């Protein structure tokens, strides 16, 4: 079953295009929507969730459009990015109220199940206003899961979580995905997506830059040209050694050490340690200079253009 289907979807605000002609299909399992800030991830999530009309194109969740169709929420759960909840309620009251709004047959059981799933039982009787950001995030997930939806959308779910909460949330999403649910989450952090999802959609400047299996895209990312600053016990000898390697595109001796341009990120990173050891050179510093996500994405785009 195709859970979410976007066909030629665009969204613009005035003359600013936020999402540009996106066609994608998101099926069961965990899918990551990856992209730098401002790429249009939230706009897409809001459109799928029925809280924003596409300016152009068609967008279906299940059998019908989500825009102007409140029935879609019977099978769809949304965890919004904004941290606004009814903070005067306790976590348990919030989830229970959501269960009642969904008119569930067994409100108490559904509430308990959702709170246990998100590991919030201990804090359920406290007011949400006393929660940490990570706990608020989890109680929002509990509320979004209370009606056992087939489709769960999460906008930047890992923001503000500590590493332990992050891992717990990732495990939860992975479990929900293996149960056959369609889980779509957005993130601007590569490692989050890497750990969690087999399928990713990479969004840059409102366009779909890459789409598909994470490993394939990861390979694209790791084989991209890359510049490192390197300092060692013997920079000149290291430069000579590096020049002899196939993955080295250029080596420059600067005042502060070496600047190495590699054509294969993965090979360089995997071999630099053994290489220096074999030649008895002590590696003092290894710094990627353009590890920012933007550079990864712009590489992906230029790669696609070719």
């Amino acid at each position, binding site marked *: 079953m195709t859970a979410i289907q976007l066909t030629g979807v665009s969204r613009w605000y005035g003359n600013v295009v936020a999402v540009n002609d996106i066609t994608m299909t998101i099926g069961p399992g965990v899918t990551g929507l990856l992209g730098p800030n401002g790429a249009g991830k939230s706009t897409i999530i*809001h459109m799928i969730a029925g*809280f924003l009309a596409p300016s152009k194109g068609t967008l279906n969740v299940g059998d019908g459009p989500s825009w102007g169709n409140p029935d879609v929420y019977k099978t769809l759960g*949304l965890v919004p990015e904004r941290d*606004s*909840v009814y903070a005067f309620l306790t976590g348990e009251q919030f989830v229970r*109220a959501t269960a009642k*709004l*969904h008119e569930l047959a067994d409100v108490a059981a559904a509430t308990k199940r959702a709170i246990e799933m998100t590991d919030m039982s201990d804090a359920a009787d406290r007011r949400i206003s006393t929660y940490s950001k990570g706990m608020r995030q989890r109680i929002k997930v509990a*509320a979004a899961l209370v009606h056992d939806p087939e489709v769960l959308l999460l906008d930047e779910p890992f923001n503000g979580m500590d590493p332990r909460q992050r891992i717990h949330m990732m495990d939860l999403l992975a479990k929900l995905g293996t149960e056959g649910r369609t889980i779509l989450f957005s993130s601007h952090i590569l490692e989050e997506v890497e750990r969690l999802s087999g399928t990713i959609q990479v969004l840059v400047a409102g366009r779909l830059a890459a789409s598909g299996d994470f490993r394939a895209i990861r390979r694209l990312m790791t084989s991209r040209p890359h510049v490192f600053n390197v300092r060692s016990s013997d920079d000149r000898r290291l430069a000579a050694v590096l020049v002899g390697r196939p993955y080295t595109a250029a080596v420059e001796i600067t005042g502060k050490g070496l600047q190495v341009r590699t054509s294969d990120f993965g090979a360089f990173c995997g071999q630099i340690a053994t290489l220096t050891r074999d030649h008895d050179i002590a590696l003092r510093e290894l710094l990627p200079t353009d590890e920012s996500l933007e550079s990864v994405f712009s590489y992906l785009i230029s790669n696609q253009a070719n």
Partner: protein
Amino acid sequence: MSSLFNPIVAAITVRATLGRRRAFLFAIPAVILIALTLILRASRPPGAQWPDHVLGDFGFSVLLPLTALIIGTGVLGAEIDDGSAIHLLATPIRRSSVVVTKFVVAAVLTMVFAALPELIAGLLAPNSGKLAFALFAGALAGSVIYSAVFVAASVLTTRAIAVGLLYVLIWEGLLSNLVGGVRILSIAHYSLGIANAIYPDQNLMAGLTLSTSVVLGVIVTVGALILATRRLSAFAIKGDPA
């Protein structure tokens, strides 16, 4: 009707509205009205005409619309502003239920914080027993109509309080007393029309008859609720054009 009123939404709305600091804000006009009545009762000779002005002018031109404005724009507008409305709207609950429930809560709270103080002040004022009940009836009707309009305003615009203030001060406060035709779209005059039908008072300028007031009041209320429902059905998250 039962499906249009959702008790869960109502309970959360009451807690949110009374729990906010604003709760003190909408009690202030009521306190002023009752205090003013007590002061005048103690200082003026019996038989004076002041109850009409205090209860009619202050009660109907200031207390009722301002209380209704603060409450009516808050019950749904505050949630839309801070984004928590999304948790309510991401459920299959009918949008008409959301609007009607918010409206009922706003109307009841306005009755408690505006119509009821109007009655209390009326009973405290000398020689005004019947006037008090007439004004109370008018204020109850006004609570209903104002609430519908202000709830709708909070869905239609993010500047509902400013729009509401302009309406109350300029349209109702100024124009409707200068230009007769404007009264046809003045909720204050609907309320006064109803009050005057129960107890005619020369000093209260009701420009409309009872039937006109009731018919227009119903049309405005129902129209506002339908408009609000239609707009809420197309509720969009404010996106940053990024």
